[in-house]
């Protein structure tokens, strides 16, 4: 039986909330004026000496009462994202067009609401049981996020959570595209949310990957990552007449190490090539690349060499982690959204905080912003467990 061919999908609505801004307009302003969202770490009872990308005010925004079962920091940030840029209204309109059962929810996260479980362990009752307010099973599963998003948007179709560490909310685009391609859905809500929690702050600290200063992606003297939190969503549709494009994607595995990238970037290279092939693009046609650029020693070294090898010098490549921090399972959607903002506004963000680029960087990797009309972008996401995903996004005519 012949396989249904990949065809580009429209991105008919999207939004992003990070420490650098809530919604697209605030994000554009922060990018344009080079205003970082990073602040000194003040998260949790015994904060490590580092910088974080903390979304202000989440402590004060309880979920609406009907969603009390899903209450936790991660779902609060998800809600913040759903109402930003009228995203939920765009989904409601799509629900009218297609029916609630024909819109899939495919959402990425690395730690979901583990912060609620961490909180419970700090407040166990004398018998070692969870405090009464946290005896809500759904928030103690990885699917807490996908389940909340489906209920909050009143959707009744397929719903699942993808958790492949830092590639999670890039891979959701691929999984949703496949569901639409085979006819199991007409549209899909994709995206991701990760929030600050002890597991990631102290976990990355144990691996000696946390920077005590502001992160400096691709800097010769970079010292590691800053962890950030973020929510982002996009609505994918096949039949729509307007919107940006998901032109293609590539996914691969490193088969190398649980917490370090392949030294020659074998998996990353394959994901780039597969993304270009599915989008029917060549490296020369790529205007902008939003790099993974975590500011970890190894990631940036491998990624810099990959970009220098594969792309022409006119391709503008940068990491936006200096604005947002590394938002882990949300990084894929955050950087896809920033790529779409770049395409929409002709603003190419440079690399914030970086003073002297590593000599491994080619001319593609830029520090300063640039204003330029662009049509084709790639967004790179590489995660623990060697999971790689590259998205190809575009504006204008395709084919």
């Amino acid at each position, binding site marked *: 039986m012949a396989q249904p061919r990949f065809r580009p999908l429209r991105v008919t609505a999207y939004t992003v909330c990070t420490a650098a801004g809530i919604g697209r307009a605030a994000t554009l302003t922060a990018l344009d004026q080079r205003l970082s969202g990073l602040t000194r770490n003040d998260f949790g009872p015994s904060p490590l000496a580092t910088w974080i990308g903390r979304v202000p005010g989440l402590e004060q925004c309880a979920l609406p009462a009907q969603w009390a079962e899903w209450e936790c920091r991660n779902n609060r940030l998800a809600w913040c994202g759903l109402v930003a840029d009228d995203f939920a209204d765009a989904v409601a309109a799509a629900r009218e067009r297609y029916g609630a059962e024909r819109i899939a929810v495919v959402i990425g996260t690395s730690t979901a609401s583990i912060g609620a479980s961490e909180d419970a362990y700090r407040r166990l009752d004398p018998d070692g049981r969870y405090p009464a307010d946290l005896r809500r099973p759904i928030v103690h599963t990885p*699917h807490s996020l996908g389940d909340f998003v489906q209920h909050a948007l009143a959707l009744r179709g397929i719903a699942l959570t993808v958790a492949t560490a830092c590639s999670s909310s890039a891979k959701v685009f691929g*999984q949703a595209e496949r569901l639409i391609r085979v006819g199991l859905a007409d549209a899909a809500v994709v995206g991701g949310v990760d929030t600050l929690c002890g597991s990631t702050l102290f976990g990355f600290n144990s691996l000696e990957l946390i920077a005590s200063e502001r992160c400096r992606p691709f800097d010769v003297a970079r010292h590691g990552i800053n962890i950030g939190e973020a929510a982002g969503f996009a609505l994918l549709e096949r039949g729509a007449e307007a919107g940006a494009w998901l032109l293609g994607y590539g996914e691969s595995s490193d088969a190398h190490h649980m917490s370090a990238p392949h030294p020659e970037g074998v998996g990353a290279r394959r994901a780039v090539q597969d993304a270009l092939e599915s989008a029917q693009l060549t490296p020369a046609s790529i205007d902008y690349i939003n790099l993974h650029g975590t500011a970890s020693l190894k990631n940036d070294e491998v990624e810099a060499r990959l970009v220098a090898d594969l792309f022409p010098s006119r391709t503008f490549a940068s990491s936006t982690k200096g604005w947002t921090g590394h938002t882990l399972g949300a990084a894929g959607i955050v950087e896809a959204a920033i790529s779409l903002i770049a395409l929409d506004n002709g603003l190419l963000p440079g690399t914030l905080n970086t003073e002297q680029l590593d000599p491994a960087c080619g001319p593609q990797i830029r520090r300063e912003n640039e204003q330029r009309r662009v049509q084709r972008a790639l967004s790179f996401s590489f995660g623990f467990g060697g999971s790689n995903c590259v998205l190809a996004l575009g504006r204008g005519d395709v084919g």
Partner: protein
Amino acid sequence: MSALPRVAIEGVAFWHTRLPGWAVARAVICGEQDAPATSAPRPTPSLLAPTERRRAPDTVALALEVAARACEAANRPPAQLRSVFASTYGDLGISDYMCATLAGTPTLISPTKFHNSVHNAAAGYWTIGTSSHAPYTAISAYRYTFASAVLEAATQVACDGQPVVCVAFDVESTGPLGTVAPSRGLLGVALVLAPAHGESHRALTLRVEQGNAVDITAARSPAAPLVAENALAPCLPFFEVLAHSKPGNATLALSDHCLLHAQMS
């Protein structure tokens, strides 16, 4: 609502603490033998280097065992297969360790436990152990985890025309987390799905429909009480059909409002 093209079930694997392997699980499901009286020790993840075998978390040992057995049954080299890994809760033992350590001495978190705490740890070790650069995914969908995994695997077969190994697993919960995320014993299952050619394998046709819990197939075999307390227990009706040689159907819940009808030839 909508159906996927027929796919071939080329390989099946099953491992539970009291039903260690598909041969014994099938015999118990069909009432041909009693379950072993004692629990089996957890499987050895022989794909990993000897030093890593001992340190591997239960989730990794279990997932690698069933993934490898399903590929063997299908006679497919694992390195070439795409993979879908799914778990309701991931590694509950490591989550308990992380939460307990963070509550007391957060700066003493073990780096190995941390990188093994990611939901895609089993998938990562699988691709390392098999030297596979093929894409994997790692998903979770609460009670609907197995149904979501088999649907994603069959969707990939329909899109790419290539075989996919689909792996689902859940382990025993420990500590306070167990009171809100209960799961007992180890239960892992795997399928190799491929484009359907001819009649040499059983075929699987999946259909998604609106519906609710009253319509789902109940597990009825002698294996049901043994696995009932594992979080992955909702997969059992699917394997009860596969255990018998005649055609059959199983209806699983796919989300709060969707059902997955699985028709097996």
